[in-house]
């Protein structure tokens, strides 16, 4: 990496002006920025050319960070709901931090001593789950999750359970070397600036870019081909492509044989407890979280079963065999082949709306490019079985996908299909294909496991197990003796067994209903759960203020840690004002979501460029302090005194275990910063990050950069640096035995745990070891004649969720939102461009304005996400367009499915992972009455500014005059 010794104060600018580097957090992409500060005020923000992630580029949000810093929506004081006032009435009084800590210490201390599960901690768009998760674990509550469950857990789980890594922050397409690129269901995504940089280079190099999406916006605008698809049907498309790839023999056979379980023999004995399990030549206690290399292949040469990876053996991928003991078996690939037999392009055409011809052509393009345009890099490496290779080979077809697949309740299986397609083409961690980013790949599934039962939850004791983990079989579920949920969000129960990120979207509803039990205190951090991150927002807002027969709130105490006056802040009993990203220390840690590159681990930090506003306190400092006050073991010394002064100190000195040498940051470890990845704490670590553009980049030797699932050198290195526990190869799960274990349990073919009766059918259906396509759950339960349309949201490039409406610059670009509809749809339904319409689902309805667009599939309507706001929030006046013309689609999306045989209150989520099915909702759209007001519905009573917020709303005019913010933006 290019390092610049004094990048933070590079150029001597005018007096009192400094340029400091830190990391952007106008979105989770985390670009390196240079902030020019004059007289203690931010003047402007530029991209940092020396940063490996964005290489100097910036986006509209990043450049507008200054207006967020000085937004009138900033909270500046800890606030307590005024005694005697109603929750949600907006009456708060300023209190001191001391008092705030006192309140929390008393309340949480009592809960921890009596019933720790009554404290629930849920966090939204943060990037420090390592810290918050640790706090929850130490506290002893099972009720912790971050936003992943409503975000893209399907993507994480679907891919990690298949290839040991995923898109999202942990891997991506190698566009530098790719020739053909498919972007499926992505509008903007997390890796946004790098993705833009790479896409443009890719196109300049003559690469071909195909976008598969019901809507053509964002990245898809520059696609060479746009393939509109009906929402929720990508599984059918992908399976048809797989059908064609297998039929024509376009798959990379060597890759499948050597690096996947395609050739492994599956026991086909009908009705047995082993049915659908791999055959093993020895059955030792399978310890740890890796696949022991004890499966069988069928040798083509000798025509006998033989232990996998026997030197020189070439196994069959297809066929049917019988072992000597009469056990019938088939290679996993044969099962896949049979599975896709009927999934013809013609079949998929009827489901996806994509002409069979197009599907076939795209499959052929993938096949031909991957087969005929191979890349061979002269990089020697050794595989996990000890075989040396002279080169690294790549098949330059790549994919990227996100919530367009993930946010459907069939997403997990669809994403399995995508991962398998990528594998068939031989593109996993190879040049021009998919590439991992440290700390991935991880074993399938990764090692951390959730607790297993009530025994793991005890007063005054840390939780036994990780609050979030990766179940490998039914025994890893977190359920009581009846097989019912222990977590508030019902994660890791039979309802959503692989809910590896929890189900934050059901936390409030469940707490309100007291199902599985009532809680006492709900702490929400950086999550706007009373608005855009909850489904069924209208009802959820009522739940937050609902009372029981005794007149007590059903959710007795709500703590909100936020930096701005969001909709959720209104519902807090105690409000903790957080700092802005320019005012605090943050770590983008290897223990969490680092910003690694394909060539090796990268982590980065934020270092304050200006002091906190008012009495804002970094939430991490609050966690560290609360940890000490509550005497959580990791946060105190043996004598009970606080171990860490604050978060900065925590980062410096925390080690995963005493003397482990592993901390939150991997760079400049060791006494004087001479070590990396692992080493004793370095008292000057922050300064060293500061000197190096706030980023640490460890470039792996070339021979460790590819084929990492099976690269002995890499796996050793990863193990040596404690990145992973085992250095076993990570073979791709074309066929998922893990899913089969759940299915067997549902069929009663197990000695272990079995699902409750009502869920047997559901588990049996959706835990299919092979990918399949099914209609999203909501569609199965909706009258689709009545609600024929799919309604989607997308990320606008210039706004991050709900939090940019406060930004005077960005809100000019998106002041309100429209419902985009195909003109054909509008005309058939009697409304015109710009008309006011109702969007109605079986759960609710919203009035909004529509806009005709030719870039949307006629069965789909969509809008930009989270532009609509509740009146008076976000430092805006009650009449701001965001609340009068803007709308939130969430009102028509339900957090629960209609009652059906699998349960009364099942989450509107993927039955495998609990991923929120945002994009499953079915709606109809009709013209609003001529007598109806031209204003969006629903409307909420305007809230007023909070104590400590800039008292006067800014005037009619605001001139951006650098360094003049304190002078109230005077005209002169």
């Amino acid at each position, binding site marked *: 990496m290019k390092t610049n010794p004094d990048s933070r104060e590079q150029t001597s600018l005018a007096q009192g002006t400094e340029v400091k580097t830190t990391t952007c957090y106008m979105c989770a992409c985390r670009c390196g920025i240079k902030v020019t500060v004059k007289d203690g005020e931010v003047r402007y923000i530029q991209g940092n050319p020396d940063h490996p992630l964005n290489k100097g580029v910036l986006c509209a949000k990043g450049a507008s960070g200054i207006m967020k810093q000085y937004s009138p929506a900033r909270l500046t004081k800890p606030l307590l709901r005024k005694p005697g006032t109603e929750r949600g009435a907006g009456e708060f009084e300023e209190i001191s931090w001391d008092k705030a800590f006192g309140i929390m210490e008393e309340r949480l201390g009592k809960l921890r001593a009596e019933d720790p599960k009554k404290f629930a901690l849920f966090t939204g768009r943060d990037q420090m789950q390592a810290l918050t998760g640790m706090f929850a674990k130490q506290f002893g509550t099972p009720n912790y999750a971050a936003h992943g469950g409503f975000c893209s857990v399907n993507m994480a789980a679907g891919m990690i359970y298949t290839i040991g890594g995923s898109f999202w922050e942990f891997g991506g397409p190698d566009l530098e070397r790719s020739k053909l690129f498919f972007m499926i269901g992505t509008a903007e995504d997390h890796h946004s600036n790098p993705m833009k940089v790479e896409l443009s280079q890719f196109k300049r190099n003559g690469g071909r870019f195909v976008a598969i999406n019901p809507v053509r916006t964002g990245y898809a605008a520059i696609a060479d081909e746009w393939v509109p698809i009906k929402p929720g049907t990508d599984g059918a498309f992908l399976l048809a492509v797989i059908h064609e790839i297998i039929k024509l023999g376009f798959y990379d056979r060597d890759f499948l044989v050597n690096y996947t379980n395609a050739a492994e023999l599956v026991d086909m004995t009908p009705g047995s407890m082993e049915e659908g399990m791999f055959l093993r030549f020895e059955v030792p206690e399978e310890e740890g979280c890796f696949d022991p290399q004890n499966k069988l292949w069928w040798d083509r040469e000798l025509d006998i079963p033989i232990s996998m990876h026997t030197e020189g053996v070439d196994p069959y991928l297809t066929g049917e065999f019988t072992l000597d003991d009469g056990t019938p078996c088939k290679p996993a690939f044969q099962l896949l082949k049979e599975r896709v037999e009927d999934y013809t392009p013609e079949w998929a055409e009827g489901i996806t709306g994509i002409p069979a011809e197009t599907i076939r052509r795209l499959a052929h393009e993938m096949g031909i490019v991957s087969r005929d345009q191979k890349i061979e890099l002269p990089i020697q490496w050794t595989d996990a079985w000890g075989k040396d290779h002279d080169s690294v080979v790549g098949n330059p077809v790549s994919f990227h996908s996100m919530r367009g697949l993930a946010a459907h309740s069939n997403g997990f299986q669809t994403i399995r299909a995508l991962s398998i397609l990528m594998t068939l083409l031989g593109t996993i961690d190879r040049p021009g294909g998919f590439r991992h980013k440290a700390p991935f790949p991880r074993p399938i599934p990764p090692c951390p496991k959730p607790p297993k039962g009530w025994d793991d939850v005890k007063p005054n004791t840390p939780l036994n197990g990780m609050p979030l983990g990766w179940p490998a079989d039914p025994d890893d579920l977190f359920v009581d003796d009846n097989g019912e949920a222990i977590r508030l969000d019902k994660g890791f129960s039979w309802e959503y067994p692989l809910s590896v990120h929890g189900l934050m979207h059901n936390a409030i509803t469940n707490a309100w209903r007291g199902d599985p039990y009532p809680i006492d205190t709900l702490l929400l951090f950086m999550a706007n759960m009373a608005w855009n991150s909850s489904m069924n927002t209208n009802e959820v807002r009522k739940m937050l203020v609902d009372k029981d027969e005794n007149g007590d709130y059903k959710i007795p105490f709500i703590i909100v840690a936020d930096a701005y006056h969001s909709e959720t802040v209104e519902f807090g009993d105690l409000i903790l004002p957080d700092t802005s990203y320019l005012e605090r220390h943050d770590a983008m840690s290897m223990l969490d979501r680092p910003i690694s590159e394909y060539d090796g681990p990268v982590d980065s930090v934020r270092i304050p460029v200006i002091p906190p506003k008012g009495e804002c306190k970094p939430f991490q400092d609050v966690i560290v302090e609360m940890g000490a006050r509550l005497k959580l073991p990791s946060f105190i010394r043996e004598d009970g005194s606080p171990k860490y002064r604050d978060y900065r100190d925590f980062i410096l000195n925390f080690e995963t275990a005493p003397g482990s040498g592993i901390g939150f940051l991997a760079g400049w470890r060791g006494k004087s910063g001479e070590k990396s990845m692992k080493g004793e704490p370095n008292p000057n670590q922050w300064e060293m990050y500061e000197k190096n553009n706030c980023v640490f980049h460890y470039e792996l030797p070339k021979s460790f950069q590819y084929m990492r699932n099976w690269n002995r050198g890499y796996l050793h290195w990863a193990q040596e640096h404690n990145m992973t526990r085992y250095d076993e190869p990570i073979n791709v799960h074309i066929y998922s035995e893990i899913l089969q274990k759940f299915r067997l349990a549902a069929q009663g073919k197990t000695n272990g745990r079995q699902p409750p009766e009502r869920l047997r059918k559901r588990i049996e259906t959706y835990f299919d070891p092979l990918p399949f396509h099914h209609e999203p759950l909501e569609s199965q339960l909706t009258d689709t004649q009545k609600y024929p349309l799919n309604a989607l949201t997308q990320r606008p490039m210039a706004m991050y969720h709900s939090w940019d409406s406060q930004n005077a610059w960005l809100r*000019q*670009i*998106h*002041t*309100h939102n*429209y419902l985009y509809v195909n003109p054909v749809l509008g005309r058939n339904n009697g409304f015109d461009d710009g008309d006011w319409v109702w969007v109605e689902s079986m759960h609710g309805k919203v009035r909004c304005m529509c*806009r005709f*667009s*030719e870039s949307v599939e006629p069965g789909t309507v969509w809008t930009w996400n989270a532009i609509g706001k509740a009146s008076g929030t976000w430092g805006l006046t009650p009449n701001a*367009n965001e609340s009068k013309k803007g709308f939130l689609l969430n009102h028509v999306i339900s957090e629960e499915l209609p009652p059906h045989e699998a349960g009364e209150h099942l989450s509107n989520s993927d039955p495998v992972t609990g991923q929120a099915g945002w994009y499953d909702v079915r709606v109809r759209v009709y013209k609003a009455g001529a007598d109806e007001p031209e204003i969006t519905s629903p409307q909420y009573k305007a809230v007023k500014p909070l104590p400590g917020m800039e008292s006067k709303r800014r005037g009619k005019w605001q001139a951006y005059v650098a360094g003049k913010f304190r002078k109230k933006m005077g005209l002169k």
Partner: protein
Amino acid sequence: MHPAFSVLFLTTLIGAGQGLFLALFTGQIFQQFKLMPEQHEPDFYVIGSAVSVALLLIGLFASFFHLGRPERAWRSAAQWRTSWLSREVIALPITMFAIAAYGAAHYFGLTHALFFTPGGTGIDATLLLGLFATIATYALFVCTGMIYGCIRFLQEWHTPLTVINFILLGTASGFTIATALSAWMGTELTHFYASWAIFFTLTAFVFRIASMIRNRKIKPKSDMNSAIGVRHSGVQQKAQGSMCGSFNTREYFHGKKATFVTTIKYIFIFLAFLTPLVLLIMSLGISSGESIFVVSLFAAIAQYLGLLAERWYFFADARHPQNLYYQQVS
């Protein structure tokens, strides 16, 4: 374009002021060259000039409202080599002064012949000053007209008709005002002015109609394809980069419905041309007294209001190619 009231007042007021002066001077010429019976009415010229200068002054005053930084208005004369606006800024005070001087000359009675033409007509200072003021007036008309006429992108304006119309409309309204003024002062010139006013109003009407016919036939030179450089018949804007409008959406578009614009069109045809024509013709039939003053005053007021409407329409009618980039708010 968005019609700014300051500009509507500026152009109509100075036009009327200039026209009024031309009327005064025409009257003087006709008398002095004995084209009509000579009368001695210095008061009429003095007061007429004063009214003319007053109109110009109010116009000038109105124009300041158009400037963002009126305190810097003095700078605006700088670029007379290239800018018609600069030229107007120069021509306007000159005209004003010339007319004022013309009025002053009458006031001070500088009517002794300085020399005689071969035809024996005495040329006095008022005549010389009037001649000079006439030149200035026409120069000012040309400058004002050219401010609009010279912008190629506004095809509705980019025609000699723009200057001609400015001249004719200004002149017509000036003569109508002169008629009223003359009637008010009870001079003998009332019918003379009324006849000329009828003539100019008719001519202006013809030319204004001509320009409207021309404008209706204009094929815009730019279209969506040339604007963004993509050749396709179905180009539609979906977002213009800001949702609540910008300078670009406010300055170049009147923001009114088409029906409103058409209404304004009929209003101005009625008020600026038909009403004054009828009233002026009526006035020809009235010999003298109060009634002719009332009738001609109404004619002048109607015509002025009509011209305001005409000027509004003049702006609203002009389609700026930049609007191609600002079609849809989202």
